[in-house]
């Protein structure tokens, strides 16, 4: 592995170093980056042996056997390894400034706000994720509000102007205890009735708030489309919710326990709204309902004993290790996520643990590439190694989700953002060289 990194590095340095010289020759392979590996996993189940991915201007323009790759272009190659599409984490907490900024507590319904405003784009979290092979994340809003703010989709690295893929994504709602269990925030000082004393304090209150908000949104929408609409004061939160009711904006509902999942489906049925289920700790016992209503699931992490913010919730005491396998067998669309885990290789290892518990390997790859892309509504842009897709890919030292495998190189938006074995400063030199090379 160390040797191959050296080979890789030498390839890089040589080819980028001489790029300017090659520029004057005006060859027709200028501005191209070619990634070569013994195996390419396209992401939809197809495997290409001894293949090459050709990248230009941040997009994939060709995927095929080595023999068809253009000659003389800059290249990244590994003598033994696998290339996969860049991984997508569909429910991440990357880059959040702090937990206080994550949730706006001044109202229960804040669907007009954006979690992007709580994200520090320069956070080191993104670098770490990129090093692990995760190239796109959906940053999920906090669960402290019943109807929370809107998520966003970000690239973890790559050209600065292209990092925000979706700035106002789906609206997040939360069923369960999260919106009322965090004691101090919901109680006024000295128990007085004031700004902080408010509903809900029970699950009944939570579902009531949700229904009330949807009713109000429906009324608001209807009022604004009738004559006299100008007299209706503008309400940004209801506006967002109205868009959800109209199906223009997606809805994501966090629910862990079985009855919370049922509540979510029931409520959405009432208003004719599609939803995506997040967390879904007990989704394994709701398969018929999820299937009937066609609910995609963003599930993760795999655990037997909960940690992090899950641990204190009191809702994570009946997990099933093979939830992913069960969802797969039922034919449901689902994505795997590492959520708030920050250990070494979190998302790829989550996929590995899902496989261990019974998920087929190909389905595991799909669950971190094409499936989250579909759930996020970006399936024509990310998640596959196909011409026309964003040049986000990972070169692994071996089979992707094994604990002994590591990413050798990570490319985001056509820009190499991580190469194993070199320092940050050396990488910046490479990136600059890549920009100055004839890719203009």
């Amino acid at each position, binding site marked *: 592995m160390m040797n191959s990194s050296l080979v890789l590095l030498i390839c890089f340095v040589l080819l980028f170093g001489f790029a300017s010289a090659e520029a004057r020759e005006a060859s027709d392979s200028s501005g191209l980056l070619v990634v070569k590996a013994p195996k390419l996993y396209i992401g939809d189940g197809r495997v290409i042996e001894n293949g090459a991915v050709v990248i230009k201007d941040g997009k994939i323009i060709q995927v095929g056997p080595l023999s068809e790759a253009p000659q003389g272009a800059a290249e990244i190659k590994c003598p033994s390894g696998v290339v996969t599409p860049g991984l997508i984490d569909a429910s991440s907490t990357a880059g959040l400034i702090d937990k206080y900024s994550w949730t706006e507590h001044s109202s229960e319904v804040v669907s007009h706000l954006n979690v992007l405003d709580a994200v520090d784009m320069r956070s080191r979290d993104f670098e770490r994720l990129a090093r692990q092979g995760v190239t796109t994340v959906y940053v999920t809003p906090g669960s402290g509000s019943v109807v929370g703010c809107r998520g966003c989709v970000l690239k973890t690295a790559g050209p600065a102007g292209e990092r925000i893929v979706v700035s106002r994504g789906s609206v997040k709602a939360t069923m369960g205890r999260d919106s009322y269990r965090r004691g101090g925030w919901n109680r006024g000082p000295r128990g007085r009735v004031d700004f902080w004393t408010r509903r809900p304090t029970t699950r009944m209150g939570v579902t009531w708030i949700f229904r009330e908000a949807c009713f109000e949104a429906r009324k608001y929408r209807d009022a604004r489309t009738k004559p006299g609409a100008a007299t209706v004061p503008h309400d940004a939160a209801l506006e967002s919710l109205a868009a959800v009711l109209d199906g223009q904006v997606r809805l994501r509902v966090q629910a862990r326990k079985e009855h919370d999942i049922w509540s979510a489906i029931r409520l959405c049925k009432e208003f004719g709204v599609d939803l995506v289920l997040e967390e879904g700790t007990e989704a394994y016992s709701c398969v018929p309902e999820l299937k009937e209503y066609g609910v995609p699931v963003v599930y993760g992490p795999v655990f037997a*004993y909960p*940690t992090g913010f899950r641990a204190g*919730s*009191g809702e994570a005491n009946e997990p099933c290790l093979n939830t992913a396998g069960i969802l797969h067998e039922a034919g449901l669309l689902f994505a795997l996520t590492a959520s708030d885990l920050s250990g070494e290789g979190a998302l790829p*290892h989550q996929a590995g643990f899902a496989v261990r518990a019974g998920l087929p390997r190909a389905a595991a790859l799909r669950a971190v590439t094409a499936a989250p892309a579909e759930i996020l509504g970006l399936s024509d842009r990310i998640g596959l190694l196909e011409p026309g897709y964003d040049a986000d890919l990972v070169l692994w030292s071996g089979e992707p989700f094994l604990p002994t495998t590591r990413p050798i190189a990570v490319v985001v938006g056509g820009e190499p953002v991580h190469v194993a074995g070199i320092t940050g400063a050396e990488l910046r030199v490479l990136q600059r060289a890549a920009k100055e090379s004839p890719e203009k």
Partner: protein
Amino acid sequence: MHCLKLAFLVLTAACLPVLSVTAAQDDESALRADKIALKAGRIITVLDEEIENGVILIDRGKIVEVGKDVEIPYDYWVMDMSDKVVFPGMVEAHTTRGIDRTNESLPVVPFLSVYDAIDPSNLAFEDALRDGITTLLISQGNNTVIGGMSRVVRPIGRTVDEMTLKAEAGLKLSASPMYGQDRLTQMAILRETFRELEEYLGDLAESAYEKDLEKKGETIKLGPAAAREKGAALISDKDLDFRHKNLKRLADGRLAAYVYCGAAMDVYNAVAFAEEHGFLKRTVFVLGSECYKAVDLIKSTGRPVILEPSMIHRETDPLTGDETEVFVPLAFFEAGISFAVTTEPRDVYGLRYPWYQAARLMRNGIPRETAIKAITITPASIIGMGTRLGALMPGYDATLLVLTGDPLESGTWVDKVMIGGRMVYEQEKDYRLKELLTGQEQPVEPAPQGDQEEKAAEAEAAPGQAESASEANKDAGKSQEKAPPSGQ
């Protein structure tokens, strides 16, 4: 003639039922037999070459022979595991599993022992079997100055005595300050403890000498210093009080010392202190992540180390904000220091598995051989069981795992666990695991009669004990209906 034939027939007839019963009971008996021949698709011996399609002969809990072409004697029960991989039971060299509170608030408590705190019914031991950990050194936590006695146990048995492999495995010390204390005070207490020990021993020696002279009817003619010297030969362990006994053993080098160092500077203090007080040669360093910086000093002592589970040291440059990550075991590997890898049972999923930790070693460039040793023979040697556990060689205990695949692959599960020649875990009968995997309640089978100690760890009849790791895990009795959602 007739009589002989008849006798022969009768004898054969009499034998038949026995034979058929025996045949039918093949597997059952194999589990209880004294002599077992294990046929395995692959045997990883650790200390020797791997063996394809080999055989392990086990007699009364010990491995007699391991090899490819081994002749199986007639009286051995054959267990066919030709589609499986046999691996030594993994060893956890330093853990606080199984005890709830890991430290007393008093700083110096060498008279305590984890014997009194281990809970054999703790879920941690059930998990240990499930995950393939067959030997654990249970010790006090790191929040102490001089802690109590550690113990090497197996995760089976109804009582701590049944679990014990080695009763007095070493004292716990810490060079890193206790909570609420600083290093100044920590080292001062350590020094004072040993100074007080010297004083106590001196007084004891002096009075022993005086008593001896009294017995002989002689009068004292020597000064106190000389008297102490003469008296020292007259005292033995049984004369010491509980406060000093273990300390004396430690100072004499008769007891292992597990010294926790949280920061690199603690290593310097620990080495100097251990050397001065005579137990450096029995010291095992239990290290925090920053201690990789003291690798040269540790190398010069020649002593082994035990690494904490995260194995990563992160530092942020205060000037530039750049983050550096160091994979700690690499520094020890490159220095040629013997290191054992430990697990974090409270981790969500990953760091709790020794095989995952070993795989991480490989991921970061350490060769497979070293990685495998770091979870088997190396920790076994460190805890003083290196001739019995951690490898599959003749003379070693028959404490092994039957795995569904290569130990370092994430798809591999522990199929069976054998401890001391007895099968103590079978995944097929692991109802809790089945429930975790399928999400469905499993019918609970009553525990079989007899030999409770063998089946104790996998019995589902006992209500699940709350794992101290997860306060949200309130599964009181899976056999009951699903618990209502936790209230306010």
